[in-house]
């Protein structure tokens, strides 16, 4: 519960903000929520990482399965991930998750000062 609520909060607010703001707005969301929710640094990183990991990989997966993996397999040749859409979805989640995670950590550390 301690982890679930911040994950859901960060994912949902990020989802709303991303509809009109650029991609790095996820960092601001995680920073502010971690600060406001008074999360401990370790928890903040984890919750923020997982929140956006799930959001990004989830949104991407919905598009990808609706597309029969046509695009993801091509992009996964380009990058190169042996054409695996699973690895591409994982990478998508990790990129968003890391940005959000570090921003969440920063928000929590600011509170601890």
């Amino acid at each position, binding site marked *: 519960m301690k982890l679930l609520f911040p994950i859901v909060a960060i994912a949902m607010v990020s989802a709303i903000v991303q509809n009109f703001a650029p991609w790095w707005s996820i960092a601001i969301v995680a920073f502010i929520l971690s600060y406001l929710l008074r999360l401990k640094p370790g928890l903040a990183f984890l919750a923020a990482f997982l929140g956006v990991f799930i959001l990004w990989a989830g949104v*991407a997966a919905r598009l*990808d399965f609706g597309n029969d993996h046509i*695009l993801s397999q*091509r992009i996964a040749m380009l990058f190169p991930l042996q054409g695996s859409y699973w690895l591409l979805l994982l990478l998508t989640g990790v990129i968003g998750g890391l940005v959000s995670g570090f921003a969440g950590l920063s928000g929590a550390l600011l509170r601890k000062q």
Partner: protein
Amino acid sequence: MRFIGFSLSLAATIGLIYVLNHPLGPAPALGRFFDPYSGFWQNAENTSHYHDIDLQMNGLHDKVEVYFDDRMVPHIFAQNDEDLFFMQGYITAKNRLWQMEVQTHSAAGRVSEIAGEKALAKDRLSRRIGLGYGAENSKAFIEKDAQSNDLVRAYCAGVNAYIKSLSPKDYPLEYKLLGYAPEEWTPLKVALLLKNMANMLSVYEFDIENTNFVSKFGADQFHYIYPERDSFTDYIIPRGTPWAFAGDSAPDGPEALPAGLKVANVDRDLYESYDRAIEKPQELNGSNNWAVSGSKTKSGKPLLCNDPHLQLNLPSIWYEMHLSSPSMNVYGATLPGAPCVISGWNDSIAWGVTNGGRDVRDWFTVQFKDDTHNEYLLDSQWVKTEKRIERFKVKGGKDFVDTVLYTRFGPIVFDQSYGDVKSKKYLSLKWTAHEGSNEFKTFYLLNKGNNYDNYLDALNNYSCPTQNFVFASRSGDIAIKEQGTHPLTHEFVADGSTSASDWHRIIPNAHNPTVKNPERGFVSSANQFPVDETYPYPITHVGIYENPRAMRINHLLSDSQKMDVAYMQHMQRDNYNTIASLTLPTLLRVIDRSKLTADEVEAITALDKWDYYDNADSKTTVYYEAWTDVLYPLLWDEMGDPTLPMRKPNTYRTAYFLRDDSTSTFYDNLQTGERETRDMIVLMSFDKAMKQLKDKYGSLDKVKDWGSYKATMVHHLSPQLDAFSRMNVYCGGNRGIVNATSHDHGPSWRMIVDFGEMKGYCLYPGGESGNPGSKFYDNMVDTWAKGDYYVAKFEPKAQLDRDKLYKITFNK
């Protein structure tokens, strides 16, 4: 301590965002690119949900309905022509925007704006050969014709309406990969597209190569190696067809070699730059078209076929469309970025094109007064040079400014500022593509045309690149005409110091080669020599014309009565290798089997029994193709010096050379100490080729079949993007064959129109969508490779409403 922790974490966050928000070398900005809300994932098109859409569209005069069929081919129904072309622009942009823009950027010399410094040399070349200059002239020329101007502007407005509807998340994938945005579409870009075609198709000129050859080997060898005519008789215009205008113009004899024109007139560093920069067309690229009169078809109505052969790319050079308004109802292949159908049919007529390949440009020697290049010598006087300032925006760098010198005889392509040239000698390029012209009018009038007279009238507007327009009408006429602006050009580098060298005679359109309803019951063209020796104008010819496909096509058309669509399909996928049938018997005669290893004897035995078909499942074809691929460069090695470019005779000419001449000095290989003969070169090449095959496959019996060996590819327009390409497409054919599908070149559009059933059969190696994230990106490639076809849904609205995938209604 705590402050340090926070600072480090914040710095890491900001650093991470910074890195992910900027491109990393060739990779895009990863954060932006992977963001599923605006990055590449947004281009993953849903493959199953299609529903009808109603849209409000500013700029329309009336309602327009667009039906998309099961191959995503758009069928546009408009109430007037302006709306029709507006919507053609809109729908084409919706599917092919990036391709449209990159092709015009290439012609305009603007690729460095997206690719940076590395594209600058090529961009400068595009401008130095005058493509942008020619496009500006064409734009001004089109503006003078009110109707064309309105239609071109309507098309551009449609493209721009689509561009304005986009937010960055909707941009085509390539914009996201390269990190830039689409710009406004303009009439200049429409003109640039045509100049792009001219640059692909009207460069069949070898003045510099011919001059070098004569300088090195003499005029006798020149006429011997490149004979004007051989035993070939399958001209586009059937032999013996009388010329209605005979006597109008006195025939010129073959061009006399300009006195004193020697290698020394031009410095070798200039030639080396020329050889490196100017891409010469590969030999035997090929395109076919033909029409069969009702007297030779099963239905009693004409059949018309066209398969223009070009570089195989994704997105494809063609976009299939059905355009309908009260004034026209037309179907066929369009050129993304330009209005009208280029190769297609309507309710009354059908037409198609092959490249004419006429020589429409010349190189002239130019002498400047001094290093300021302000004046050049013409008719013993110093004449002022025009200087055109070309400015290049370079991504990640400073703007570059180039000055191109224009003379009476066109722009100076190479000088001390471009192409490592130290020479103070100069060559200028004069080219019909520099002139303003309005080719769209031709296609617009064809799109609306009803009969033979409309066809001839339409063609009168057509200038460059020269095309053989085949024609058939529902009422039963067939015809063909080689149309373009044809000045009497030079065969060698010409003297630019005298106006006497200029193009004083241009063949009138009415005198371009044409024939209507010939007695033999068919017309055809396959890039061969157009006319017999009675044509009253000279035609420069060296290395330009491709005859073997025409021999095969005319044979197949003469041989058969009661032809039908199935026979037309059989012809378009015909893999008979005419050149092999002319070459191989000579080669086999030379081989002494007693000197070969057991597996080599097996290869020779297979070749002996070979039926000359380059079919995908044939191994024997690989032995032949690998052998001759080694033979030709060994034989014509005298012409491999980059400081003295020359045109190697094509494989068709080489077949006769091998057969008829066993002792020519050209057989001597310059790399060896001894003097080779034909037989020695044939043996050397066989040994070398078999060794290469053994090295590649382990042994000769493990050699793969031709389809696997040739590994045809349909590559993305960007050479780096293998991931968006179709590699190893398994199919037969090769250069010089009716199905001229080589490694990367082939039938870019296959079309058969049957006036008996009023049906069209067509496809191209690609798909209607330019989006690599669409299932319609490459869905036709496999059907194409198999040699199958789709029946075009050239149907009325009510039928399309039943057959559609979905429909968009645009309301004004």
